[in-house]
């Protein structure tokens, strides 16, 4: 294939599939699924009117914010800074999808797990904090400070959990080493050995909690803290800024669930990538991950900030470090 053809395909991947358009659609679906499932668990209807089973409600909400709702300009605010921060977060999440086997042009390099951590753990969080700080307000600052405090434990936990399958895949001879693509393709094999199976189970447990905390779903909705801080770092967002923030939030959930599906659940295994049965299995696993996130969100109340930090350290960081220790042991053995 010619270089210009690969460049053209790559641009198509970034813009359409599995890039911006696809990830946006997947984000809207994830939001609908979470809202609907949580509502049914709480004996409510959830989204019902827009589209079949209300599936188009998140898109309608987004379009309303984007096209109709006014953007409130606060005296001290810098809306462009907020939009820039959130745009960088969207860009980081969209670019990360190119590392997964979902992409038509699959990018891989030795140690590309560091690039994933750089994009997802650093730029997404920094983007949201930059957006929050663009609206000076005591409630916003309180929310942003809680966000930083929570990210200080949830992001290391998430990175440690992601390192478990990549280290194990390298130990099993996947090439290139520490690559997201190679790990995604071989992750199903990692469950069949006792030592690596235990490490994978610890990693899966850890990344589910870390994703819950990263995406600020209950019981970790501490930075937003409705009623307590009005809406925390989101208090002053309105119109297009709020639409963009909601998009980033949903993209984080969708990408997080997709990453867990590939790195821990074997993606489309036992079928091949980009085959019809493989896609069905992939969708079922993806929905399974979303269901677990929804279940935790529906059945737990909000923790206080110190409780949240302690919970992430105890139930996510420690298991991730233990799992990583086992994975390093397997690598060295």
């Amino acid at each position, binding site marked *: 294939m010619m270089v210009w053809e690969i460049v053209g395909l790559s641009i198509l991947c970034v813009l359409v599939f599995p890039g*911006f358009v696809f990830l946006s659609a997947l984000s809207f679906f994830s939001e609908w699924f979470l809202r609907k499932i949580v509502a049914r668990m709480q004996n409510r209807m959830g989204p019902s009117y827009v589209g079949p089973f209300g599936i188009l409600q998140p898109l309608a909400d987004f379009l309303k914010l984007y096209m109709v709702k006014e953007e409130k300009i606060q005296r001290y605010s810098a809306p462009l800074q907020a939009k820039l921060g959130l*745009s960088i977060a969207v860009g980081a999440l969209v670019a990360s999808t190119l590392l997964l086997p979902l992409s038509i042009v699959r990018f891989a390099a030795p140690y590309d797990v560091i690039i994933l951590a750089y994009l997802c753990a650093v730029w997404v969080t920094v983007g949201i904090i930059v957006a929050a700080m663009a609206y000076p307000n005591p409630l916003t600052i309180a929310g942003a400070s809680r966000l930083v405090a929570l990210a200080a434990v949830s992001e290391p936990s998430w990175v440690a959990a992601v390192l478990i399958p990549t280290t194990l895949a390298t130990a099993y001879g996947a090439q290139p080493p520490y690559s997201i693509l190679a790990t995604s393709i071989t992750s199903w094999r990692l469950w069949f050995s006792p030592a690596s199976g235990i490490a994978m189970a610890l990693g899966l447990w850890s990344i589910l909690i870390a994703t819950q905390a990263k995406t600020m779903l209950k019981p970790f909705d501490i930075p937003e803290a409705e009623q307590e801080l009005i809406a925390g770092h989101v208090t002053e967002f309105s119109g297009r800024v709020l639409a963009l923030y909601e998009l980033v939030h949903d993209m984080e959930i969708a990408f997080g669930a997709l990453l867990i599906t590939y790195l821990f659940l074997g993606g489309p295994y036992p079928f091949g990538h980009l085959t019809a049965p493989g896609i069905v299995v992939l969708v079922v696993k993806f929905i399974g991950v979303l269901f677990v996130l929804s279940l935790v969100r529906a059945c737990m109340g909000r923790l206080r900030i110190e409780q949240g930090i302690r919970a992430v350290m105890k139930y996510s960081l420690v298991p991730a470090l233990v799992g990583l220790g086992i994975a390093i042991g397997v690598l060295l053995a």
Partner: protein
Amino acid sequence: MAVVELLNPGTLALVMSCASLGIAGIVLAMFVGGRKSRSGDEMYIGGESEQILKVPVPSSPALYWGIVKKAMGKVYHVLRDVVHSGRLNEWCGFMAGWFLTLLVLATIAIIAAVTAYAGW
């Protein structure tokens, strides 16, 4: 048919950064502009005025109630635990204790008044 591009880490970091920045630029261009509100440019502090942020110390009523709540907190907890414990005999005991105290005080007061009146 998927294409696998195996790059070196530096090149991949560059490609990912460029893709990220490209999408960020497109998204920013999509979200710049839009309808702006023309009314009110104050920050939203749960309905409070911005003036509240300029006050160096709490207002007198807020300070008074703060101290009262702080000082009387323990008393309130004792009362709540004893009187509103949900057990009838505890409530009876508490009320009987108070009535007894009042009775003793009243008796002392009457004796004192009678003594003073009689000039003893």
